[in-house]
């Protein structure tokens, strides 16, 4: 998306255009939901709704371009994820229904199959990481956030984020080598 197009989209979203919000939602909701699910968020679709409602409430105060907007949305998602974890820790455990299967992807069938095959292995490797390493890798890869943005989102120093990323990638390499997986 060109910067001009993004600016006009942002202005329309501020004025309350449903079409603009639909475009923003379609562009960001899948990756945000993926981030929440991969990070073991309790009730990820509920958290996704809260994330977008906060984005809508505060969008009048946002200033910046598309990368900054993406980073801002993922920062909100990370904070809402922490809140949801705290809230679920206080609540008694309830047996919830399985989350609905993804109803479809934007990719074609070949990519869909590849993603499905890779998804199990990816989830296994992600499960082998520590929580901090997983958060940093997901925000860097899925959210396309810079090291500084990740540091702001998770409340750590950039040096600590780099160290977590380095250790996370080393753990990914180990896991891939251990299983003999070649992607």
């Amino acid at each position, binding site marked *: 998306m060109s910067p001009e197009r993004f600016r006009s989209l942002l202005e329309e*979203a*501020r*004025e*309350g*255009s*449903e079409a*603009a*919000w*639909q475009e923003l*939602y*379609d562009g960001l*909701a*899948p*990756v945000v*939901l*993926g*981030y929440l*699910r*991969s990070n073991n968020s309790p009730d990820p*679709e509920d958290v*996704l*709704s809260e994330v*977008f*409602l906060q*984005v*809508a*409430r*505060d*969008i*009048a*105060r946002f200033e910046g371009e598309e990368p900054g907007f993406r980073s801002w949305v993922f920062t909100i998602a990370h904070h809402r994820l922490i809140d949801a974890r705290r809230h679920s820790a206080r609540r008694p455990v309830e047996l919830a229904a399985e989350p*609905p299967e*993804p*109803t*479809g*992807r*934007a990719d074609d069938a070949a*990519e869909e199959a*590849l*993603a499905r095959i*890779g*998804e199990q*292995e*990816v*989830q296994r*490797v*992600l499960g082998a990481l520590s929580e901090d390493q997983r958060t940093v*890798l*997901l925000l*860097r*890869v*899925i959210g396309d956030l810079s090291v500084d943005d990740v540091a702001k989102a998770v409340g750590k120093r950039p040096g600590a984020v780099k160290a977590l*990323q*380095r250790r996370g*990638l080393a753990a*990914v*390499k180990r896991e*891939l080598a251990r299983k003999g997986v*070649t*992607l």
Partner: protein
Amino acid sequence: MSGNGAYEGEMNEIGLFESALRAAVRTQPDPRLGATLVPRLAEVARAGTIEAETQATRRGAARRRPRSRLALVARVGLAAAMIPLVLAGLAFAGVTVPGPARSAFDTVGITLPNQTSADQHGTSAGKSSDEATSGTDTNPGTGAQSKGNSAVAHQHALEQRAKARGKAIGHSRGKAVGLTGSTPPGQSGETGPPSHSNGGGSSATHTTPAPDSRATTHGNANGHSK
């Protein structure tokens, strides 16, 4: 992402993992969620924008609003009126207020409390220190008593003077007699102290002139010892 010194093969592996991660993690939310959420998002954003604009307008108006001149004058007047009140409060609390401030109060006929009279009058021009001293006399009997005291003291002083004069007489006479005698003192053959010697005797015994030179000499010695 940087592999931080990883081999090229490992970097490719990581890159492939990242691609797989992107593909694997990306999941479409339930379309029903989007259908209900998007109109609500638009509504919330519209309300938020209106609220933000209202706040910005209020903030701007508050910043631009000029202050009333009357309010400024009232503030200055209030501050000026507070000065004498503060001074009076300090005086009530027992603090000695500086002279110029007290003079200002005196001018308008107000006497500040808890100010020492010496301080009060010390600053007033044309008042002598005697008046200031008499102003501190609160007991009328004190003057008479002091007068009586001074009379007693005067009498005592006269007595002392008379005694001293007696000594002086004895001294001069003794000396004169001793010196004019044929035998110089200490050469009369009497080496011991005189039988009537009283080293610590009263001076009254020596005021009377001694008939002989020894007594006079001893009287002289006693007179000197005192």
